């Protein structure tokens, strides 16, 4: 089942939820993991996201695409989760400061895809919610226009941030042995 871009108003809450599950179920799991490292808390977060989505579909009026709606609701829930559970000494940083993150210079040994993904999660979880949202959407395959629509930031800002994200991802790919060409 694919997500309709502008579903008719008659679409029921259940139909919207089913479409979301089919199309974005996996992405929502990855989103939860981007915001929460602990498995139990992550399951709670994912549960909260699904609950919030299901309720939100009552008021979904089709003025934006369902995908945009789903990502906005999910990020809002996840960002609230971060605010509630953030450890006092954990300092979130912006994309511009990602060079300073620990472990980034560690190129010893081979890093397989799984490890690379793990490392990506670690990096994402250190980012401020907006940057975290942008990196996540980029990794999920959203283009600049879609990212701008979901996050509400300008195209210029999105382009700048995507450029930084690309550099980060390239560096990450190069640091993994199995990715060295």
């Amino acid at each position, binding site marked *: 089942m694919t997500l309709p871009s502008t579903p008719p108003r008659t679409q029921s809450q*259940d139909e919207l*939820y089913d479409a979301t*599950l089919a199309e974005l*179920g*996996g992405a*929502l*799991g*990855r989103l*939860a*993991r981007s915001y929460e490292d602990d498995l139990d808390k*992550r*399951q709670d977060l*994912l*549960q909260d996201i*699904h*609950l919030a989505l*299901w*309720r939100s579909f009552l008021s979904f009026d089709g003025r934006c695409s369902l995908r945009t709606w789903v990502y906005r609701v999910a990020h809002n829930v996840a960002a609230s989760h971060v605010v509630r559970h953030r450890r006092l000494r954990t300092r979130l940083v912006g994309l511009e400061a990602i060079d300073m993150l620990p472990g980034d210079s560690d190129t010893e040994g081979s890093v397989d*895809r799984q490890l*690379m*993904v793990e490392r*990506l999660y670690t990096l994402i979880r250190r980012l401020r919610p907006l940057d975290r949202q942008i990196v996540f959407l*980029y*990794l*999920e*395959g959203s283009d600049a226009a879609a990212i701008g629509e979901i996050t509400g930031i300008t195209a210029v800002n999105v382009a700048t941030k995507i450029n930084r994200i*690309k*550099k980060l*991802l*390239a560096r*990450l*790919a*190069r640091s993994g042995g199995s*990715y060295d*060409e």
Partner: protein
Amino acid sequence: MSEREIDEVRAAWQEQPVMPIPVARAQNLSIAVEQIDARARQAAGLLTRARYATILGLAIYFPIAAWVVTTLDTGAERFGLALATIGALSLAFQVNVHVSRVRADMARVDAQPTLDAYLALLERHRAFFIGRQLWLRMLTLFPALLIAFGIQLREDPHDSASVAGMGVVLILALAMYIQSHRQARRVDEDIREARVLAAEMP
């Protein structure tokens, strides 16, 4: 920077195993009820702690008041202190009565966990924080303290301690008013949520 490298990272990201969804839609309502239940119990726990704090506060207040009354020279000062004491007792009484009622509500919820039972409990919480009960609390506690300091200030217009005391009382009154309304808004959100759920329930 190579697009291929980036595409590989994005592919690795998107090909991760899908995390199982912990809830099915059919369970959503019961989970929402569980969340309300958890919040209601948390609020009841807070109130119980508030009762202990009030008892502790009175245990500290009375010996101090008993000592202060021996140092007062005039009947007016003693009158002010008496009013403050009545205010403190009134506050303790309100908290105590409310906690007892909430406990009775929780017992009803335990016996029959319906949304109506939760709504009754939540509405009792809200009534505690705003409206008649809040004003009763504020009017029995703060004016008495203001009168007590005012009497002292009338007798000694240069008594800076009394001026500071009045300032503290006004700040405390404002803080109680703001905090009570904040709590009431939180309870309001829970009530709205419970009503939406009640409407959604089959």
